[in-house]
């Protein structure tokens, strides 16, 4: 019996004296798939960032193959055989897929064609359908994630940490990913798997560790867990077994038509798309990756532009709109909560309060020429309380928050603008079950207040649980509509695929 490939002993990390992780003991055996689960702010990211050399431990030690190590940078950790695939992609958007894969492994003389061929062969071996010559900024979230995974595998790491790797993958892509995990395991590579999808953790893991409030609560064989036991350990309170488990028994009455999209066209992604969004309802938009959901609503919010000629009409309260910049949409009462929060959602080096206040300034259209510190602090405090953002203080930088709390900041940044139409794009991606419940409750509250709410989600149970009406999009247009009462998973998925 060999010892652990990676071990953490009484690992503690404090920020401004407040422990993010507190005396955690953790071990990872060779060839083991070990899941770490917990609510947002439980310490999963901090623990794994310490392993990957992103943050140093305040106290405690880390051992690789029984030897104490202190990686100071991710590069140090990589040399020791520990690689991390982050929750949000860390790819260089202006470079191609192949260039990103081989970033840091350049030779003195690099032949681009050679890199492309090597990348192509490598991606094919992983069964990842990604064009190595494509610029990363043009890829969707799922494909970016695939490149991240491929990069970690390429670096021949002995321990690979995946932070929410499946959040943006389609069911088929997930299957490939799990096959990849099994093949890594067969090669003796150890895997740490962080996921909020508990079924996935139960499915792929050998062991599961549950963290709560920076402490390790339980570690056990996956076969000894079920969903209820994990949730109980995660939240330490009697939460419903599944936040998606309850089907709607009644739906909200339709209010005024707030948004009417008519025959919208946007390059190859949106093809003659028509839909309406009504006040006082949650309109769920479901579709597979590439179905044009995000692009449709990005056009509405002025993030991207529709076709220059014959691009169709978008009417807000019956008035035609065509935005050149998102700020114009914000002023008209449209808020778009992005699916890619790290790139588009917030300023990562700014504090929570500053981020939220910047959202307000966008709405005020230059009527606040000066940044008022006191107003920013007040606004930040109000929204931190209202959305239950778990942070040490309002001055904490957004980058230092967990995924779920970052998402709450992005939502607060949108809600501070007091919008009439709020578009949530994948609002609970990379968010733990506790925060999912809170975000869902918030979305429902907004609809109850009479706001028009759109929720774009790739996760069918989420769409089914939260929507009053469900629009199914396929190949660039809405192909079917269901009321929440008549919808079944089979019907919705059938419409999305066929």
């Amino acid at each position, binding site marked *: 019996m060999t010892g652990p490939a990676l071990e953490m002993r009484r690992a503690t990390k404090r920020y401004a004296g407040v422990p993010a992780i507190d005396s955690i003991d953790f071990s990872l055996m060779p060839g083991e798939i070990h899941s770490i689960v917990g609510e947002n702010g439980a310490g999963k990211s901090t623990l794994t960032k310490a392993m990957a050399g992103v943050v140093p431990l305040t106290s405690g030690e880390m051992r690789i193959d029984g030897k104490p190590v202190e990686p100071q940078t991710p590069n140090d950790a990589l040399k020791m055989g520990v690689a991390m695939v982050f929750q949000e992609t860390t790819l260089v958007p202006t470079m191609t897929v192949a260039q990103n894969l081989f970033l840091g492994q350049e030779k003195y003389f690099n032949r681009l064609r050679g890199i492309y061929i090597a990348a192509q062969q490598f991606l094919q071996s992983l069964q990842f359908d990604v064009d190595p010559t494509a610029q990363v900024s043009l890829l969707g979230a799922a494909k970016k994630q695939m490149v991240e995974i491929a990069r970690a595998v390429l670096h021949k790491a002995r321990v690979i940490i995946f932070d929410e790797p499946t959040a943006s993958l389609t069911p088929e892509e997930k299957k490939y990913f799990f096959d990849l995990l099994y093949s890594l395991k067969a090669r003796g590579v150890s895997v740490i798997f962080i996921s909020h999808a508990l079924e996935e953790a139960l499915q792929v893991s050998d062991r599961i560790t549950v963290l709560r409030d920076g402490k390790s609560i339980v570690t056990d064989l996956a076969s000894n867990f079920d969903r209820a036991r994990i949730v109980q350990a995660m939240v330490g309170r009697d939460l419903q077994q599944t936040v998606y488990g309850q089907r709607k028994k*009644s739906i909200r*009455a339709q209010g005024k038509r707030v948004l009417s999209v*008519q025959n919208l066209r946007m390059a190859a992604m949106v093809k003659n798309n*028509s839909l309406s969004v009504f006040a006082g309802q949650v309109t769920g938009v479901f579709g597979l990756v590439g179905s044009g959901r995000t692009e449709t609503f990005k056009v509405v919010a002025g993030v991207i532009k529709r076709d220059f000629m014959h691009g169709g*009409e978008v009417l807000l309260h019956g008035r035609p709109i065509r935005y050149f910049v998102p700020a114009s949409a914000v002023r008209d009462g449209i808020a778009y909560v992005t699916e890619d929060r790290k790139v588009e959602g917030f300023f990562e080096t700014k504090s929570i309060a500053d981020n939220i206040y910047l959202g307000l300034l966008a709405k005020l259209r230059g009527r606040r020429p000066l940044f008022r510190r006191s107003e920013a602090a007040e606004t930040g405090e109000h929204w931190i309380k209202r959305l239950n953002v778990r942070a040490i203080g309002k001055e904490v930088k957004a980058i230092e928050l967990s995924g779920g709390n970052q998402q709450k900041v992005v939502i607060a940044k949108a809600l501070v603008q007091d919008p009439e139409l709020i578009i949530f794009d994948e609002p609970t991606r990379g968010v733990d079950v506790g925060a999912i419940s809170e975000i869902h409750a918030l979305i429902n509250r907004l609809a109850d207040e009479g706001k028009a709410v759109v929720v774009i989600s790739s996760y069918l149970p989420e769409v089914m649980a939260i929507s009053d009406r469900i629009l199914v999009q396929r190949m660039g247009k809405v192909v079917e*509509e269901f009321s929440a009462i008549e919808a079944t998973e089979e019907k919705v998925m059938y419409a999305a695929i066929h």
Partner: protein
Amino acid sequence: MIAMLSRWKDQLLGRGDAAITVPVFDGALKSNRLIEDARVVAALEAPEDVTTDGRAVFVADGARVLRLNGDRLEEVHRCAGSITALACMPDGGFAIAIEGKEIRVEGGAHHGRQWSAIGAQGFNAVNAITVGRSGRLLVTDGSRERSYGQWKHDLMGLGHSGRVFELTPADGGGRMLAEGLHYAFGACEAGDELWVSESWRHHVIRLAGGGKAPLQAVTDALPGYPSRIAPASDGGAWLTCFALRTQLVEFVLREPAYRVRMMAEIAPEHWIAPALNSGNTFLEPMQGAQLKMMGIVKPWAPPHSYGLVVRLDERGLVRYSLHSRFDGKNHGIAAAAACGDTLYLVAKGNRRLLALDIASAQRELVG
């Protein structure tokens, strides 16, 4: 000048009015087959309007007024010409529009009262009469230029000479409430407001303050051409749409030269225009079209006729809708009347009186 440049720009880029888009059937307007599956009460010769006094249902069929007695229709009145609108008076009798040019009260306390003009404003295409709470008659006259039967001509000519009148049977007086409407077709009291269908603008407008206040849309961007409005027993109204808007027709409406030539050279039943029924002849426009999708040529035709009734709530918001889809036959719904738990509809397309249970429709559509 700026407006002209803006129009040219829109035409070039396919924007604004030149975008030629049509609102989609979604939300409460999501299509179903309830009108197609409705019970056929009777096949008629030329049904036009249906009304109720709360106890019985009356249908205008050609020149006759028929009363529904069980499942049987019996003639209760016959006019000299075709009836274009019918309403039950609160004290018995009917208000009847004949050939769109004359309104008469037949029976009841004001029997014999008649109007053919209000001052210098002669009636031309009276298409709906509603009785208000105070006993006043609310009358819509679709067009000053085209007769009632020539509604297609009015649409293709971009007519906007519709008028709304208020008539008082007690003294035989009347006044005009609004004019210059894009085919006024149906009016109804809703609280202190008066709602009027403006067909060619695809909306229902509100005439507040006795018609003096500016016109406001109650419900706009309808995917069909709205017609008569009947009050619903629990508030709100039933709005019928006699035809459907399509991108093809919208396109033709923006092509004046084409329209002029079409109107001059082709029989109206073969125009690219909304219709009350379709599938009668291969000469109908675009019935033999095809569309190439994914390399496969598929038969396709833009819809020519449709059946649609919209249930509006007290605020004018759409609660749910009843449909007869393209493949159906109960098209061209021109009038509705709710009597008890039953909604009666006149399908002009295939000349039928239909009935459906309101409670079960509501249960099916809104739970």
